[in-house]
């Protein structure tokens, strides 16, 4: 498996060392080196990237700013010489955290883990939809509510919560889209954006970078577009 990889770091030496490591590694296809977050964001809009090595401490626009502004992020590895960013790595669900200076064996372990993550995600997305149970329970405001899966239109991320949009109602639950997509692995749901998981059966219309469910226009992240198109052909 080959990972399309981008480096974002304002330090020339850091970029050169990472480039050297990437060229040594058979799983990495290095497609961009950006000397700042703005260039990284620009490139992310245009190209499909699987993995980003992102420096956290950059002037002007920091690594955190980059993540907040990116429309959708693939796997991100935080690179920094400061341990204080470890908490941010956890909050942003970073793929890994590399403390500078890191050597090639450490880099290689990071890449292997990224490959495992990618393979797991591909497996989930390619699984045929075999219904095991047509309902699920959510906990809202202290009570357990049973929902028919077929009534769920989409899930929307709202900070620490997720809003569950159903045909006649919506609910607010304390969860993450990552957890939800894992639970719905065998159903026709798919994450198409950092903030949305949709019910594939409810798509009314698809445009270049958006789709419509009921009357809601939902963005499709570039990183998910081709997987979505492949998945729809299976239906």
């Amino acid at each position, binding site marked *: 498996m080959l990972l399309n990889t981008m480096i974002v770091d304002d330090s020339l*030496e850091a970029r050169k060392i990472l480039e*050297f490591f990437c060229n040594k590694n058979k799983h990495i296809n290095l497609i961009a080196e950006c000397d700042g977050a703005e260039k990284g964001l620009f490139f992310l809009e245009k190209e499909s990237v699987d993995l980003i090595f992102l420096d956290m*401490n950059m*002037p002007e626009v920091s690594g955190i700013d980059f993540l907040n502004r990116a429309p959708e992020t693939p796997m991100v590895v935080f690179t920094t*010489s400061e341990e204080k960013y470890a908490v941010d790595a956890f909050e942003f669900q970073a793929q890994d955290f590399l403390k500078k200076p890191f050597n090639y064996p450490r880099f290689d372990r990071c890449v292997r883990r990224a490959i495992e993550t990618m393979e797991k995600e591909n497996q989930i997305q390619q699984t045929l939809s075999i219904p095991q149970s047509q309902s699920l329970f959510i906990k809202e405001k202290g009570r357990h509510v049973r929902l028919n899966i077929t009534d769920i239109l989409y899930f929307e991320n709202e900070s620490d919560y997720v809003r569950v949009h159903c045909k006649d109602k919506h609910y607010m639950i304390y969860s993450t889209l990552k957890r939800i997509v894992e639970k719905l692995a065998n159903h026709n749901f798919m994450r198409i954006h950092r903030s949305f998981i949709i019910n594939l059966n409810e798509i009314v219309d698809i445009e270049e970078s958006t789709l419509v469910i009921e009357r809601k226009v939902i963005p499709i992240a570039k990183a998910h577009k081709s997987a979505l198109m492949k998945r729809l052909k299976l239906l």
Partner: protein
Amino acid sequence: MNNVDNIGTLTNENSFHFNPLLDVNYLNDYYQENISDAAFVFDLFLNCTVQKFYEFIDSMLSNNHRKVYHLAHQMIPTFKLVGLTDIALLLKELESKARQSSCLHSLVKSIRTKFKKAIPIVFNQQAAIGSFLRRQKH
């Protein structure tokens, strides 16, 4: 650091030994016998970081503390990777002081003195790494 004329780098056919005037423990732990990685990094230091160091001195002279902090932050990893961990520590100290715009001159003077003595050692080390790798090829 001692007089550079007395520096020798002990090598044998099968393994490479770093110059003991550098932080050998750090270098052995980091490179783990990947001497070609060391060759790359030593080249990088001499071609990029040295230039950055002079820029750092210029920033200090023009009292641009923000740039001083930023350049110090960038240089710390590569100084470590060529075994100059003592200078890296001083740069780290300077990095934290530069943020508060404290008096940096004596610290910079110390860094500069150490750097001046260290550069010939790093050059020699780079040459020794290159010779070792060429012998390995033949």
